[in-house]
Structure formats: structure tokens, C-alpha cells
């Protein structure tokens, strides 16, 4: 079984998995170091804002979401790509009372063998600052057809 090189993000916008370098948020690196910048659709307005991923700590940012990276497919490259895809073009957008947005979209993991898995990828940025609190992908159903 061989996994196709391309990942279909959202609906039909195919993009190759990019070999993004894993952020350096090792011991001693300051929490406010920026390790990701994403073009994010504005809520209830036209245009985009820039949402930022900081190294952060236990409660937010890369250090918080890092354990979710190996739970997803394709390592940091795909995870990073999926954060960007969801923020740019979310399918569902929830404005929450705890001060965060919860944005999500389906991500298709395509297999050369002629089937695909639908994941739902979530990104939770702070409403005011655009700082990413967390992100994670949940595996959904397998469709026994070639990728759309």
C-alpha cells in the first residue's frame, strides 16, 4: 500500500506535502518566539488577518499542540499545511464564549490504492489576538473510492 504524495485540503485544492522544518521550541526557547504565520480569513469581514503560532507553553501554541502532530498523518509538514488551509478557508467556524474561535474543515488523505480517509482538522485561535491556542486532526471515515 502506497500513500499518494498529494494531500487534498478542504475540497479540491490539491497541494503537495511541504517539507517544512519542525519548529525549534526546545528547552530555553522563549514562549513568544513566532514559529508560524498564517493567512486567516477574517470573521464577518472581507479579507484576511495574520494568525500566529508561538512556541507558547503548556497551555497554548506549538508546545501545547506538539503531541497532536504524530496523531495526524504526514508529520509537521502536513500539520502545518492543514493549519494554514483551515484558517484560510474554514468550512465551519464557531465563535465561542471562552474567547476562542474554533475553525475546522475536512482534509482528505488520499491513497494510491484507490481510497481516502476524511479527517476533520480543527484550529483554535484566540479571537482578539489571533494567537493559535491549539490545533488537532481527528480521523473520520474511510471512503472506498479514489480521491475526489
Amino acid at each position, binding site marked *: 500500500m502506497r500513500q499518494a504524495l498529494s494531500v487534498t485540503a478542504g475540497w479540491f485544492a490539491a497541494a503537495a506535502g511541504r517539507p517544512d522544518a519542525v519548529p525549534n521550541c526546545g528547552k530555553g526557547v522563549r514562549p513568544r518566539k513566532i514559529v508560524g504565520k498564517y493567512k486567516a480569513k477574517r470573521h464577518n469581514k472581507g479579507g484576511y488577518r495574520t494568525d500566529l503560532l508561538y512556541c507558547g507553553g*503548556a497551555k*497554548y501554541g506549538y508546545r501545547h499542540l506538539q503531541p497532536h502532530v504524530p496523531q495526524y498523518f504526514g508529520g509537521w509538514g502536513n500539520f502545518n499545511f492543514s493549519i494554514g488551509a483551515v484558517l484560510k478557508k474554514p468550512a465551519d467556524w464557531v465563535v465561542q464564549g471562552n474567547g476562542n474561535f474554533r475553525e475546522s474543515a475536512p482534509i482528505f488523505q488520499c491513497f494510491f490504492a484507490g481510497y481516502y480517509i476524511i479527517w476533520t482538522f480543527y484550529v*483554535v485561535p484566540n479571537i482578539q489576538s489571533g494567537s493559535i491556542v491549539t490545533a488537532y486532526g481527528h480521523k473520520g471515515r474511510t471512503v472506498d473510492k479514489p480521491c475526489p
Partner: protein
Amino acid sequence: MKALMFGDSFVPELRDILTSISTATSFGPNGIEIETREQPFTYPWQLTWIGYDPDLGHSRVICKLAAERKTVAAVIDAGDFRKICANNTRSRAWNGSAHYHDMAVLASTLIEEQIVTWDPSQLGSEVRIKLPKDRIA
């Protein structure tokens, strides 16, 4: 050694968040808005009970969430959140809420991450709500 306890404001604030109504918007593939609706924070789950553990008191909070005829208990121990369990701090770095303290906001985010966004069939009857290993709040 005295067990760590949650501050008195934690349960009321967490209940307030989990029973709050969120505004959700769906978009089509072309980015055009399809619909906007009001839904509970925990949708498609529903909070059925929140309170202190009858045996452990303020050191453990239990939230029961139900969906599709399944109930999952979220178990939150003060000892896993020793720096913020008093629920009297507000970190501007990640807490964007104007009303709620850090412990309530973090617990709501973790409940969302570990229960609310999961399919009920993928969860057991109890989920220990905590930060990733080796990270203590």
C-alpha cells in the same frame, strides 16, 4: 500534605462556558456562507452534570457529557493544574476571555479537544482531562 483544591469560582465559570451558546457558521467550497446558527458550546454533546467528586471534594471536578445515548465523564484533578487551579489568574498570552479565569478557559478548551470534537463511538466512559504529558499548568 494537603491536596490541591480548585478555587470556588472554577465550577460556576466552567458551567457557564459549557452551557453557553456559540454562533456557528458553515461555508461552502467557494467560501460562500451557507448558514449561521446558534448552538451550545458542547454541541453535539450536552452537559448533563457538573460538580465536585463526592469523595474528593474540591480537588476533583467531574463533568458528564452526553451524546447519541452515550455519557462520558470528564475528570479534572486540581493536582494536574497546580499553578492555575485556584482559578484566580488571567494570562493575557492565551486567555482571550474578558470574563473567565485561566483554569475555566483551559478546562473548556481541553474538554473540547478531548471529548466534544470526538465521535461518541471513539470514546470510553471516562476521560481524564489533562495537559500533554510532562507539562504541568
